[in-house]
């Protein structure tokens, strides 16, 4: 149990630091590495709260596919991207706004009692049963989100022969 709490804190610090590093480093390729580490640390959380399927999905989709997509984007647009400073100055207003959000939410979080907080895992079969029956409409909608994305994205990047 102590081990789990320890794991939580290690993962939490890793996630926060990697997310921040991804947005602050100069080289965009380094950014991709940091963001991959961020996705992996979140997958660690999902294993920690006994949601292994979500963990695997996070590793496959985020740490795998999305990272590669981002890397692809960096490489294709590389010519100009290295020539320019990626970051602009740190104005006080965005930092203040972000801090305000963190403080307000953390204050709300701190009102939750720290007594026994138990987590319960679901088996993959229970999850898939729920996903394809009770919540099947969400999957249909996800498919309908992907339809215009696919059609439009192909249209936009296709070298126009017409």
């Amino acid at each position, binding site marked *: *149990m102590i081990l*789990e*709490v320890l794991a*939580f804190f290690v993962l*939490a610090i890793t996630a*926060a630091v990697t*997310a921040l590093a*991804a*947005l602050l480093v100069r080289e*965009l390729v380094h*950014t991709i590495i940091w*963001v991959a580490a*961020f996705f992996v640390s*979140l997958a660690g*959380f*999902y294993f920690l*709260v006994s*949601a292994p399927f*979500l963990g695997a*999905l*996070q590793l496959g*989709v*985020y740490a795998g*596919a*999305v990272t590669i*997509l*981002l890397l692809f*984007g960096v490489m294709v647009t590389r010519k*100009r*991207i290295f020539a*320019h400073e990626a*970051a602009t100055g740190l*104005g006080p207003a*965005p930092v203040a*706004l*972000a801090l305000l*959000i*963190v403080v307000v*939410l*953390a204050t709300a*979080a701190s009102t*939750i009692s*720290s007594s*026994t*907080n*138990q*987590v*319960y*895992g*679901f088996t993959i079969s229970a*999850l898939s049963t729920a*996903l394809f029956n*009770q*919540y099947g409409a*969400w999957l249909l909608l*996800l498919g309908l*989100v992907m339809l215009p994305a696919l059609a439009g*994205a192909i249209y*936009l*990047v296709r070298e126009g022969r017409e």
Partner: protein
Amino acid sequence: MTGLPLAGFLALSAVLLGIGIFGILTRRNFILLLIAIEVAMNSAILNFVVFGAYWGGVPGYGIEGQSVAVVLIGLAATEVAVGLAIVLALNRLRGSINVAEATVLKL
């Protein structure tokens, strides 16, 4: 399994959301904007997974959270693909993807 601090998870997702919003407000490179949005989206997904697990103690509750998380992971990946398509088309047209250089219209 007991003892994981629920408040800690909520605080962490708040921190991640804060980082995401900070990134969206300060970065001007499109790829970095995409990453900042993904960080914010991941904080929502983390909330759904964790609170799904916590609600699992109540019969009939909880699994909804993890189902939402599955759908949201798919949605976020779709959004990244669309964003990259737009940026590639723009890149081919103009040779730059810095939002600050969007000269015709100001952000």
